[in-house]
């Protein structure tokens, strides 16, 4: 038995290549993670627990965790939950915008991704068309929207000309609808591509089997396609919702009114205010913690789905 196991083990090793091969393949990813995530994360911690230059009030990170101070943490905590807290509404507003924008993104992206995935021809062309918005910088696209949405802009012209509205809508003056649609516009291409990648992998044979067993189009979709794409929906929603939660640029470009301020704007303001970069760093860490929760939930749910898949 032992000899047989050893033989099996040897054959496995040779089939999978030398022992160092697989860890070494993970090295670029690990380096990427270390340089672009762990290091900035540590810097944020060092600023959050650090001091400021006594003359210029620029941040001075403290690298030794034993010397970190909790002053900024206390400040942000009081801004969030203290007697004179003013950030609670901003947090709730951000959450609402992100949830609504993600839902709209999903409603737009899923049919588009499904359509492309089901195409047998011209798939490449459709994918190129989906990636096309990325060819123009985000700032340029937002500036274009400013132009289109201004009081005398094309959007108001069309809406008034078609008598859908009688008075021009103030799209750019603190209109939450504009901010949410701006977020949708900015992030929907990412979601389409993620959903496409998942939907394209669904085995056509399963759909045919469902149809052979008597399910109609809608029930096939509801009972086969949708459950099979659940994980990719979660993944896509997370990939778009996470950056949305920290977004500040869309809001700055399309509103600029305090009633639509998102938490990203507060962070941006803190970081650009001398002496308050520590507050900004704490807010960054809080946001990270808040976003970690859905991420952990996703990882657990996908690992459960993976286990279930193996059992099948």
């Amino acid at each position, binding site marked *: 038995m032992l000899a047989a196991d050893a033989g099996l083990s040897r054959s496995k090793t040779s089939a999978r290549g030398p022992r160092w091969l697989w860890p070494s393949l993970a090295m670029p990813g690990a380096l990427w993670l270390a340089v672009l995530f762990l290091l900035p994360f540590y810097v944020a911690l060092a600023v959050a627990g650090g*001091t*400021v*230059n*006594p*003359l*210029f*009030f*620029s941040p001075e990170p403290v690298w030794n965790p034993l010397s970190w*101070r909790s*002053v*900024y943490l*206390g*400040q942000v*905590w*009081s801004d969030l939950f*203290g*007697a*004179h807290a*003013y*950030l609670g*509404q*901003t947090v709730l*507003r951000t959450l609402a915008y992100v949830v609504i924008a993600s839902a709209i993104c999903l409603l737009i992206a899923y049919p588009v991704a499904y359509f492309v995935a089901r195409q047998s021809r011209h798939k490449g062309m459709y994918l190129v068309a989906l990636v096309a918005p990325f060819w123009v910088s985000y700032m340029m696209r937002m500036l274009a929207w400013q132009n289109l949405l*201004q*009081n*005398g802009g094309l959007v108001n012209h069309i809406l008034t000309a078609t008598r859908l509205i009688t008075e021009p809508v*103030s799209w*750019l*003056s*603190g209109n939450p609808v504009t901010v949410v649609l701006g977020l949708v516009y900015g992030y929907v291409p990412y979601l389409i591509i993620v959903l496409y990648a998942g939907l394209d992998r669904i085995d056509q044979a399963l759909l045919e089997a469902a149809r052979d067993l008597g399910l109609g189009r809608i029930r096939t979709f509801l009972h086969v396609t949708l459950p099979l794409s659940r994980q990719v929906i979660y993944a896509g929603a997370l990939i778009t919702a996470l950056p949305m939660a920290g977004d500040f640029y869309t809001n700055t470009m399309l*509103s*600029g*009114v*305090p*009633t*639509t*301020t998102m938490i990203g*704007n*507060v962070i941006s*303001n*803190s970081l*650009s*205010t*001398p*002496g*308050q970069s*520590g507050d900004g760093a704490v807010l960054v860490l809080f946001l990270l913690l808040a976003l970690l929760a859905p991420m952990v939930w996703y990882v657990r749910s996908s690992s459960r789905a993976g286990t279930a898949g193996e059992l099948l």
Partner: protein
Amino acid sequence: MSRHPRDRSIPNLAAAPGLNRRDFFARTGTAALAVSAAGFLLDACGGGGQSASLTSGTPYPLARPNAPVTWPVTRSDVIASGLAPEKNATLQLYNWEEYIYTKVVDAFAARYDCKVEITTFGTMDEALAKINTGQVSFDVFWPTVDVIGQLVTGKFLRPLNHSYLGNIDQVWPQFQNPFYDQGWRYTVPYTVYTTGIAYRKDHVKVNPDQLANGWSMLWNPAFKGNAMILDDYREGISLGLLKNGITDLNTTSAAQLSKAKNSLIELTSMDKVQVSNSYTAIPDDQVWVQQSWSGAVIPVTSEMPKGQSVDVVGYWFPPDGRGPVNNDTIAILSSGSNPVLAHLFLNYMLEYGNAMENFAWLGYQPPQRQITPASLVKDGLIPPNLASCTVLPSYFDVGYRELELSPSANLAWNNAWQAFTAGT
């Protein structure tokens, strides 16, 4: 968008007169903020031996018109008189974005047979951080009045040798011995400006001069969705103070700051006020009333859409000059390797012809003695309907200046501003 020299100013280390950090937070009764303030105090101390001098004393005084400051000079840092300009040199300018006319700079390069390179910054904070690294070799810098103390204390500025700067007599007398730099040891003036309200006369039928308080012009539900204030905590809170009739724009009073904040919050609910430094909102008809710098209004003449006259734009600033007024400066950095050329450049910018050519492009007025409101309009530098953008020397006698704040006051100002911009 941030091409104007005003930005979030840097706090200094001097204590607020009559109000220390603990007092301030005790008055506001905010225990949690007090915790933060204590931390801020520690920050200021730097945790080391500096603490005594940085908290109990003042490393440099707060410059005020009634408390002028003469900055110390180390003789060895002053260049000798009568030196020839550096040969084959590249003069390095460190300036705000779009804050100098390149044609004027090119003419300087041709006159003194040198090259000139302009590096720009977006905010004063960013500029100070870069200078503080000690890794830069810029010769000439454009500091705001409220950071001069920090720059001198950090030994980043080179004292001026007046023998190179004969054109100083062309500027208004008060800038030949300003309170923020007595004896103009480190700076020469660059521009002067007021902060008022730009408006579209085709929409706004109110005459602000007929209002009991012209600053309340923005607080009008008729302008809902069409009002904008500057994205600058000092200017924004100052507007709130002026709306309440408070003219101390360097106040350390928590009650006054609270009033200003509440007025701004009211402005949000009443007008949905936008917070931005946009230069195009008025010409594009995006907003009808906008808190604005005088120097930013003048260039709208070139921003108006085709076929639309600039006559529809107005600028209100109290005709008696009792409003926010300020100036910017030029200084020489000690890190630069061309101090003689740098002196010549400062003198060149003080020369009437060069200053006016720069003004024609820039829109921010130099404090030149020869300027009169009538001459500016007559020479076509300002359209007649924007004559109110002209800054008069008398404004600096009666106007209100936003100056350096102590760290505690600065923190309070910032907190008030952040509570407003967070959309509470």
